[in-house]
């Protein structure tokens, strides 16, 4: 039988991937937060023994396929972001929600910069100031997402925390 935390992680990441793929009107597309990265950051912070860089790599590849980017483009960005979270999770956990949201915003910008950098090397990179809007939206919704995922974790993953 698969341990419960794995199920919660895989299900929440699948839902996040669906939210990333959901068709939206053009104006909303520019603001769509990167759900997969947000959910991965949460699990890497809350259950670092389980959700690590390998999981980030796998979901990065799935993002690459779903967004038709180069295979490895989102993967490398997510691996680096989750590496940072794993190095700093003890510190992030004691942040207030607002501080956490700002930190998550920085992580999202780092991720987008890596993806943008690869796009810039290989083909035409988008050239607009709207590019970092999703990172801002991601930071704004972080507190709510955090509370939601924390409740899911407390309910379904009986661990030694809290």
């Amino acid at each position, binding site marked *: 039988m698969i341990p419960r935390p794995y199920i919660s992680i895989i299900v929440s990441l699948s839902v996040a*991937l669906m939210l990333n793929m959901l068709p939206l009107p053009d104006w909303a*597309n520019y603001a769509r937060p990167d759900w997969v990265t947000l959910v991965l950051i949460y699990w890497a912070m809350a259950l670092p023994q389980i959700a690590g860089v390998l999981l980030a790599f796998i979901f990065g590849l*799935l993002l690459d*396929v779903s*967004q038709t980017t180069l295979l490895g483009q989102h*993967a*490398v960005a997510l691996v*680096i972001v989750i*590496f940072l979270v794993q190095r700093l999770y003890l510190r992030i956990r004691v942040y207030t929600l607002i501080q956490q949201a700002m930190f998550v915003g920085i992580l999202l910008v780092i991720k987008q910069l890596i993806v943008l950098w690869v796009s810039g090397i290989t083909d*035409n990179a988008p050239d607009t100031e709207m590019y970092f809007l999703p990172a801002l939206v991601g930071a704004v919704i972080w507190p709510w997402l955090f509370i939601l995922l924390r409740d899911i974790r407390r309910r379904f993953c009986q661990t030694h925390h809290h």
Partner: protein
Amino acid sequence: MVEMNALFQTRASLFVRTIVLVILSIALMVADHRWNHLETLRTGLSNLIYPLRYTINIPGEFIQWIDESVTSHNDLIDENLELKQERLLYQVRLQKMDTLELENQRLRKLLGTPKKASERVLIAEIFSVDQDPYKRLITINKDSADGAYVGQAIIDANGIMGQIIHVESNASTVMLISDSNHAVPIQINRTGLRGTVFGTGDSSKLELRFIPHNAEIKVGDVVSSSGLGGRFPPNYPVGVISKIERPAGETFASIDIEPAAKLDQSREVLMLWHNAPPDNYGVESKTK
């Protein structure tokens, strides 16, 4: 002390794992970019997310189904009548077309030029639109089992839409001509002037580049595919010149093209095999 050691070890191995995965990602990107050898891996991974893609499509299809179900009887009668009239009109035009085609073939024979291959088309439905707002990609519901191949031209009733860039299972990804990485070789119908039309990332505007200031062009000129390069069949409409600017100091004119195909409105598209044998001529509509 033991705990310290354990902590240190996991940190070291985290670093090693990260480095390995980063190198692996870079290797994948290079392989994907340089040699396009990863189609099998891409197809495998897209099978994994197929159920998710399918699920998010359900609400849209459900709404469409409701919409179709509640259409009133009178509306249907009206639509049917309209379609019948339209069909009659097209039949008349097609008759003329047949005669013209025969005449064209006869004349070509007289001239000694080889006969043009006829084309085969298949209707595909747009499955989803890429969520990246900086790209112009769509997914259609046909794969290699239907004969889709990388580089295949995709058109709609009004003109060229794009080409297939990945064939997955049950779906193929199409890059639209409005994507900023796309270019179509064209000619201007009125003068025969050749050029290349580039996407801008904006689905209502394309750009005709590298045309000198003194070229014989004007607003309203119809631009069609030239067939050079072999990817797109010749003589399909690409768009109409909507704006010409000749900035002093620049070598080339800046020319905007309004695309002929309804790039962000179509729901059905046509896949085109333009080197198909002549006996396959005609529209084939296969539903999955």
